[in-house]
């Protein structure tokens, strides 16, 4: 999965191309709940996502490690980090999470990237009005 071509010139020039080498993927997600006044703490949100993994992939799925890097309680928006091989499992269980404490809810996946840095500059957020 890796290709590297190195040139050792007298100067320090080196170029390396990494393909699919990113260990993690990062997601920016937002939880939308039927009742706007519902608030979750960071721990509750992570537990809720683990419940989703458990119901779709069972105990083995619920053991998937992921990190809640940042969470804004007012907008219910979170940054998640997951090992690249767990991305599809996490994403699919987020998609299928449909109710929180008997209220309809949905996760909106706003951005997915193999780089955390990319999540800090999303041009779709440009507001000029």
């Amino acid at each position, binding site marked *: 999965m890796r290709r590297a071509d190195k040139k050792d010139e007298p100067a320090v*020039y080196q170029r390396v191309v990494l393909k699919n080498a990113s260990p993690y*993927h990062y997601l920016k997600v937002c939880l939308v709940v039927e009742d706007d006044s519902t608030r979750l703490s960071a721990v509750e949100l*992570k537990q809720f996502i683990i419940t989703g993994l458990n119901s779709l992939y069972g105990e083995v799925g619920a053991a998937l490690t992921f990190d809640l890097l940042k969470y804004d309680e007012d907008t219910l928006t979170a940054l998640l980090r997951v090992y690249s091989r767990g991305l599809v499992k996490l994403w699919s269980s987020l998609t299928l999470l449909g109710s929180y404490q008997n209220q309809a809810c949905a996760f909106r996946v706003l951005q997915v990237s193999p*780089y955390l840095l990319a999540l*800090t500059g*999303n041009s779709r957020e*440009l507001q000029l009005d």
Partner: protein
Amino acid sequence: MSADLERTPRNLLVSERSSFLDPKNRISSQLVQLHFNYKVCVLLPECSSAPSHLDSALNTFSSFYLIRNLPLYELLDTHFLETVRHGGVSGLSYRTRLDEDNCVALMPNGRLSLSLDKDSFELLGVEGKPSRFNHRAKSRFVVCVDLTDSSMAPGGRGHQRLVTGLTSRLPLKTDFLMSLPAGGGASVQALLSRYDWSEHRPEVISCSLTDLLCPSPLTSDPSSLTSDPSSPLTSDPHRLLEWLGAVHAAVSCENSSSSFLSSLVCPEPNKKLSHALSVSVCGLLSHQDVQKLIQEIRVYLSVSPPGPASWASVTLHGFVDSPVSWGGEHGVLRGGDNFLSLTMFPDQSYLLHLAGGAQDTCPP
């Protein structure tokens, strides 16, 4: 089945180390090939406020225009074509999504690129080719024309055909972001006067950081990053990019490995920097302004007293929905990432990381 679940779309990261003093360095051409810059983020360690020359470079990014509901045939107007031929005019459709909508980009070299869905492409009736990222399904097509070419001169065959297509068969309208070369405002006044437009200055946000955890080579001997390829941050650029991302996204790195919420930590060994400055500029940014900023940071690094943490990082994000990036076609499969990260050191050496997503050519 479980193996399929573990696969993710392709991503490419080019990692380069070189020096501004190396006559063969390609940094200028690599910067230009990002085509449309949305945001530039600067991180200066051990700095509480930017020196005046750097501050002025950050605050004097040229303004850009937003024209609402611009019919695309206006881009082929005689006066506008004259302005395009002088070079430096760039534009991009605004609030159009490359994976759903028709998108337009006008590059500073006068090339116009249209990324169209199948129906629109067939209505337009101009030569194009299927997008290389779904050439089997043929559901998206790319039309690329050189507005500086003689056939695109007003009255020329190519010009007439495109104008007819855009006026009678496919009257496309879009909100359009446009940046002009310095002093170019007067030449498009006639165009602007016909539509609802506004001028915008890039937004500058400055943030002072204190007690920032920083990976060790960057706090003690930053230049070793370019001279020693075995340094962990050089050999695994993802660690450096993750840390930079955490700094710019204001994500805490002070977690323990047993923490329930997050186990993100700053790469070891690390040290605390007493303060750092993070500045971001956001809008449709011109290459000239970005190059000027990088030049000013080089000057800043060369004149600032040598310290254990003298380096600077610049991250340049491209527009996600630009139909072109890295010198080729660009698509949004999942994220549409296209950005570069440049870490500069006082001895004029630098580390450059260029990232492309699943629908990108390999960065230059």
